[in-house]
């Protein structure tokens, strides 16, 4: 089998930001058990900046490491900046992923987008209300 990079293994063994944010501003869940990976990403937003992010993941080493990496990448970023994070960004930040892991197990960027969409929908809603 293709091996994981050291960085992947480091994040897999010591994942950052595992957990939930009870009053999250956005939650993104992607994947399903049939394909082997489910990722749930929570974000907390303040003044257009992601101030906290947490995840829960069911999946392989790559799924866990990419989840961890995404939370690390987004914390402190604006929503706009966060939206530029792609699967490729995450894989690159981890020093690469084995080819067969590039798609299925590299869902964290997708989860992030879903979480941001949810946040936008909510806050957009709020803004509408505020108007």
């Amino acid at each position, binding site marked *: 089998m293709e091996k994981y990079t050291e960085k992947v293994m480091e994040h*897999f*063994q010591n994942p950052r930001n595992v957990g939930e944010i009870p009053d999250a501003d956005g939650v993104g*869940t992607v994947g399903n058990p*049939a*394909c*082997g990976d489910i990722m749930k990403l929570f974000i907390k937003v303040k003044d257009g900046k992601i101030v906290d992010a947490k995840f829960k*993941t*069911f*999946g*392989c080493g790559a799924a866990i490491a990419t989840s961890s990496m995404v939370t690390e990448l987004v914390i402190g970023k604006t929503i706009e900046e966060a939206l530029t994070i792609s699967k490729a960004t995450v894989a690159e930040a981890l020093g690469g992923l084995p080819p067969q892991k590039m798609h299925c197990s590299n869902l964290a960027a997708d989860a992030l987008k879903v979480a941001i969409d949810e946040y936008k929908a909510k806050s957009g809603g709020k803004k509408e209300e505020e108007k």
Partner: protein
Amino acid sequence: MKRKVYMDYASTTPVRPEVAEAMIPYIKEEFGNPQSLHSFGDKPKQAVDEARVKVAELIGALQEEIYFTSSGTESDNFALKGIALAHQKKGKHIITSEIEHHAVLHSAKSLEKLGFEVTYVPVDKFGLIDPQQVRSAIRKDTILVSIVHASNEVGTIEPIEEISKVVKEAGVIFHTDALQTAGTIPVSVNALGVDLMSLAAHQFYGPKGVAAIYIRKGIRITPFIDGGVQENGRRAGTENVPAIAGMGKACELAKSEIPGRVEALTKLRDKFIQGLLSKIEHAYLNGHPTKRLPGNVNISFEYIEGESMLLFLNIEGVAASSGSACTSRALKASHVLTAMGVPPEIAQGSLLFSLGAGNSVEDIDYVCQILPPIVERLRKMSPLYEEASKAGKGK
């Protein structure tokens, strides 16, 4: 140094020192071609002849019914494709099961592309095939039935003797993939009533690069590898003499040691299963509780995924495998567990510990000690476990 615990014997086994010793002279000195007319071929030819006798003795066959190949996969391809091509005038229907190794399944798929029709008989929740289902699948144009003797994943031992009765009654040729049983438990081609059998040395402390196929006298088969006259014209290519000699030795050792091996492994297996199930909640044994390979421990740990468990186990020095999608290139959960009706999320959490000669009670205790915290750690990370806890299922 960290403890190293190998529990992946179903994948491949170490080579016994006696086997290595039997091989090395044919690597270093006796390099001749067994087909030679001159004397450089004498000892290599004798080595191949003697190995053939030993393989035959292990499975109760005649020496002229044994043909050497390069892998279990090649033996399976030869059986399916060779019988299909030789008997296609009689019919183009083949029966196999849903829990075969890919060597059989993908050969069957290739035959479908050549115009053959294949029926895949199902299994029950233990992975058992019902001989009556085989009977009702047999048609007038059925030319071959191929059923695995024991699944390499869940270890369920199939009722081959009963299936063979059904198949014989219908006058159909019967192949069994005995990769996991030959050399591991007692296997006799006549007691089982099979016409063809695949077996591979690297599954029972013999070398890689050599396997065999038993073809009952009188069975017509089209060669799979065409060329020279080796293996009585049925399998061409210069013989892999050292590996063949090693396979002979492995068969000889297996023949005398199987009873002891079975007893020891069965004890270890049952202790291990009990240990894991008692220490870890939401864990389920896959396969049959008793009709299973002596070394096979296949358990699903709900809410978490196999590869991540394997990675942590590996960090602790333990080698095992899993039926999870992430550990397969196809990125699908084990087709065997799926055929048994195991739901995907539970199939994803399966671990296969396959025990063998090198394992001790200490190994079992070690894994029973390190696995629970791994499972706990991953469950804490798992959104499925969280949901189940909320729903009052997890604790």
